[in-house]
C-alpha cells in the first residue's frame, strides 16, 4: 500500500520527479516543514541566497543558461513579496521559473496574521499563473502543473503558495505519472503548412529582406538556432538580433549586422527602416526596438513567427503571422525549401548588401579612444578579445554598461547572454551570474556591471563566498548612473539630478571582505593585464574598472524618433526639440 506523506515531503518528492537538482531560497517560519524535508535528503541542492529577489534572479540565470526550469523557495510575507521584482523580470523576459512560497496556515489566511501577504493576489499580474494550495489533495497537482505551465508555450514564472498546515497534513502521493495536471494547457505549437508556403513565397520575392531575431529562438531550444543558422545560410539574407536574441545565431557571422533598437547599430536600424520584407522570429516589436511606431519600417511586408498569439499585431501590424514553436516552423520552412528545390539568388539581393555595407562603413560603434583614461567601450573590447575563445557566460546589470556589452561582446552560442531586457532590473546581473555558475561550475562567468547597479544586490557576495562561486564581476565604474545621466544631458538641460554616485565603497576592499579578490585599474595600458589576471584567479573577483565618467552610449535613437533619426555620437545634435510625445516616453 502507498504510504502517506506530509505535504512538505510531497513538495520535495515532486521536485525530484521534475528532475530539479538545485533550488535557490531563503528559509522562514512558514516554510520550516519544507526546509526540514530538504535537510533529510541529498538529491536537491539548496543555495542559500541573501535576499529573495536574488533567489529569483539566480533561478533565472540558471534557467536561461541551461534551458531548464529555475526553482525558488521562500517564506511567506516579506519573503514572498521580495520575489515580486524577480518574478516580473522573468515574466517580461519569458524565463521558466517555479517559485514556491510558504503561507500562513489556511485558517489564518485573511486575518492579517504575522508575515501574511496575499502573494497570489500580488503576483497575479506578474506570473504566468499561480496557485494557492488550500487542500492537501491539490498539492502535487499544483506543483506538477506549475512546471508544465512554466516551460510550455511561451515560458514564464509560476508561483505555488503553500500554507503551513498543508505542509504538515498527510496524503498519498503516487508520483508525477499518477497526478492529474493541467492537461488542457496545450499551446498551439504546430504551424499550418499553407502559412509556411506563403512565408517562403515572400522570402523568394524579397529584394531587401531582413531577419529580425529575438529571444524566442533561444527559448525554443538549440534546434531552433541550428535551423535559423541554416536558413540564413541558404538565403544569404542579413540578420539583426534584439537584446534578448543575442547569440541565437553567432554574432561573429558576416550576415549579422549588429543589434537593433535604441542603441542598435546604424546598419541594423536602417536595414529595418528601408527593408521590403521583415522576418520577425521570436521577438515582440518592443518599444525599444520600434522607436516611433508610425515611422517603423514603413515599406516592408512583415512576417511574424512566434508561439505567443498575444504578441501578434500588438504594437505593429504584420502581414503574415505564423503561430507555433519556432524550431518546428523553421524546420518545416527548411523542408519545404528543400523539397521544392527553391534556391535564393545572391544577385537579387546584391544591391541590398551593397547598401548595407555602405551603412556598415559608417562604423557606428566607433569612439574616440584615449591614452590616459579608460573608455568603457575599450574595456569591453579588450574583455571580448581576451575571453571570447573561452565562450564565457555573460550577465549584466542595467544601464550604459549593459548596452556597451551588447554592442561590443561576441556571442557565438545561445544561452550565454543573460540580461534583464524587458523589465530593466538593476541588480539582476550578480545573482543571475551565481545561478549560471551553479549550473556551469567550470565555465567562465562574468557579470558586466555598473557601480550603481552592482550595489542593488551586493549582499550576494556573501552567497558567492559561501559556495565558492568563481564569478568575475567586471564593474565599469563611471561614478554615475550613466544612462540616467545621459538622458538628463540629452533631455533635461544637463541638470544631473541625483544621478551622481557619491560615497561608493572601495570595491577592492569590499571584495576582500567577502573573501574575493579585488582588482582596480584606471589606465588603459593596464587593461589587458587586469583581464588576464582576472581569468587566472580561481575564485571570485571584483574588477573595479575606473572609466571615463562622461562617456555616453551611441548610437542612440532618442525617444519618440524613428530608425533613420539616430544620433551617432556626441557631436550629433538633436534636430530641434524632442517632441512632447517623445519627452513622456521612457
Amino acid at each position, binding site marked *: 500500500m502507498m504510504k502517506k506523506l506530509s505535504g512538505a515531503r510531497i513538495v520535495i518528492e515532486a521536485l525530484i520527479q521534475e528532475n530539479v537538482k538545485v533550488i535557490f531560497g531563503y528559509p522562514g517560519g512558514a516554510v520550516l516543514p519544507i526546509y526540514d524535508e530538504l535537510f533529510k535528503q541529498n538529491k536537491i541542492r539548496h543555495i542559500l541566497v541573501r535576499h529573495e529577489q536574488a533567489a529569483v534572479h539566480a533561478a533565472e540565470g540558471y534557467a536561461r543558461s541551461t534551458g531548464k526550469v529555475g526553482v525558488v523557495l521562500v517564506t511567506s510575507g516579506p519573503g514572498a513579496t521580495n520575489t515580486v521584482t524577480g518574478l516580473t523580470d522573468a515574466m517580461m523576459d519569458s524565463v521558466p521559473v517555479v517559485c514556491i512560497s510558504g503561507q500562513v496556515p489556511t485558517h489564518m489566511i485573511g486575518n492579517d496574521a504575522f508575515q501574511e501577504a496575499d502573494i497570489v493576489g500580488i503576483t497575479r499580474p506578474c506570473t504566468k499563473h499561480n496557485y494557492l494550495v*488550500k487542500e492537501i489533495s491539490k498539492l502535487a497537482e499544483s506543483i506538477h502543473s506549475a512546471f508544465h505551465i512554466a516551460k510550455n508555450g511561451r515560458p514564464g514564472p509560476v508561483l505555488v503558495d503553500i500554507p503551513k498546515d498543508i505542509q504538515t497534513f498527510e496524503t498519498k502521493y503516487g508520483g508525477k505519472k499518477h497526478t492529474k495536471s493541467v492537461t488542457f494547457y496545450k499551446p498551439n505549437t504546430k504551424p499550418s503548412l499553407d502559412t509556411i508556403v506563403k512565408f517562403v513565397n515572400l522570402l523568394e520575392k524579397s529584394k531587401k529582406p531582413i531577419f529580425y531575431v529575438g529571444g524566442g529562438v533561444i527559448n525554443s531550444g538549440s534546434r531552433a538556432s541550428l535551423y535559423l543558422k541554416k536558413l540564413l545560410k541558404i538565403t544569404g539574407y542579413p540578420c539583426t538580433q534584439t537584446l534578448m536574441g543575442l547569440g541565437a545565431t553567432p554574432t561573429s557571422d558576416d550576415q549579422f549586422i549588429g543589434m537593433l533598437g535604441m542603441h542598435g547599430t546604424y546598419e541594423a536600424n536602417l536595414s529595418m527602416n528601408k527593408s521590403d520584407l521583415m522576418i520577425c522570429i521570436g521577438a515582440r516589436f518592443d518599444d525599444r526596438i520600434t522607436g516611433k511606431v508610425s515611422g517603423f519600417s514603413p515599406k516592408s511586408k512583415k512576417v511574424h513567427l512566434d508561439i505567443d498569439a498575444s504578441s501578434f499585431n*500588438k504594437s505593429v*501590424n504584420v502581414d503574415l503571422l505564423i503561430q507555433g514553436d519556432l524550431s518546428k516552423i523553421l524546420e518545416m520552412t527548411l523542408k519545404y525549401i528543400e523539397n521544392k528545390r527553391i534556391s535564393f539568388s545572391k544577385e537579387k539581393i546584391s544591391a541590398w548588401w551593397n547598401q548595407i555595407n555602405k551603412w556598415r562603413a559608417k562604423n557606428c560603434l566607433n569612439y574616440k579612444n584615449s591614452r590616459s583614461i579608460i573608455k568603457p567601450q575599450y574595456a569591453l573590447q579588450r574583455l571580448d578579445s581576451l575571453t571570447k575563445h573561452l565562450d564565457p557566460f555573460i550577465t549584466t546589470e542595467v544601464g550604459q554598461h549593459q548596452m556597451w556589452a551588447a554592442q561590443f561582446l561576441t556571442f557565438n552560442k545561445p544561452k550565454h547572454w543573460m540580461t534583464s531586457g524587458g523589465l530593466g532590473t538593476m541588480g539582476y546581473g550578480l545573482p543571475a551570474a551565481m545561478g549560471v555558475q551553479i549550473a556551469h561550475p567550470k565555465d567562465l562567468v562574468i557579470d558586466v556591471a555598473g557601480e550603481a547597479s552592482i550595489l542593488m544586490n551586493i549582499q550576494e557576495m556573501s552567497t558567492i563566498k559561501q559556495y565558492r562561486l568563481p564569478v568575475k564581476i567586471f564593474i565599469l565604474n563611471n561614478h554615475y548612473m550613466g544612462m540616467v545621466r545621459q538622458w538628463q544631458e540629452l533631455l533635461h538641460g544637463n541638470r544631473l539630478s541625483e544621478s551622481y554616485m557619491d560615497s561608493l565603497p572601495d570595491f577592492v576592499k569590499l571584495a576582500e571582505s567577502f573573501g574575493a579578490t579585488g582588482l582596480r585599474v584606471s589606465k588603459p595600458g593596464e587593461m589587458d593585464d587586469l583581464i588576464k589576471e582576472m581569468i587566472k584567479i580561481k575564485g571570485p573577483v571584483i574588477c573595479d574598472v575606473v572609466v571615463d565618467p562622461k562617456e555616453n552610449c551611441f548610437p542612440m535613437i532618442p525617444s519618440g524618433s524613428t530608425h533613420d533619426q539616430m544620433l551617432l555620437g556626441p557631436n550629433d545634435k538633436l534636430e530641434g526639440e524632442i517632441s512632447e510625445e517623445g519627452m513622456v516616453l521612457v
Partner: protein
Amino acid sequence: MTESHSKHILSIMVDNEPGVLARIVGLFSGRGYNIESLSVSEVDSDRFLSRVTVVTSGTKNIIDQIKAQVRKLIPVHNLIDITELKSFIGKELILMKLDIKQNTVLKIHKHIKNIGAKILFEDKTVIIIEFSGTPTEISSLIKKMKVYNIVELTRSGLVSMALGKDYIRR
C-alpha cells in the same frame, strides 16, 4: 487617423475556481481595457465551469489583443466573440423597486402590465418588479419609470448567446 471603436460581447468559459474572476478583471484593468458589463455564474456543476460574459469596446487591434490575452489565462478553456457570429441574442435582467402612493398605484400597475414586467413583491409602500430584455429595452424602461419614484434598481449585466448552431465549446 483614428480607428473606429466597436462594442464586443465576449463569452468566456472558465474553471470555477477562486481568483478566476480576479484574473480576468485584473487583466482588463492592468492593460487599460474597458469593461462595460460583466456577468458570471457557474454553468456546469459537474465540471466546475463558469461562463463569463464581458462587454468591452475598442479598435480591432485592441479587441484582438484582449482576446489573445484572455485566452492565455490558464483557467480559460474557451472564448468566443459573440458579436462576430452571424446573429446573436443579448439579454439583461433588471430588478426595480418603486415607491408607491395612493394616487400612483393604479397607474404603475397599468404601466407594468403594458411593458410585460413581473411583480415580485408588493406592500403598501413599495413594489418590486422584474423585467428582462435587451440593454436598449432596459434603458428605455428605466427612462419611462423615472416619472415614478425609483427607490433602487439593479441590473444583471448582459448574458448572450449565438443564434442558430453556433455555441461555445466547453
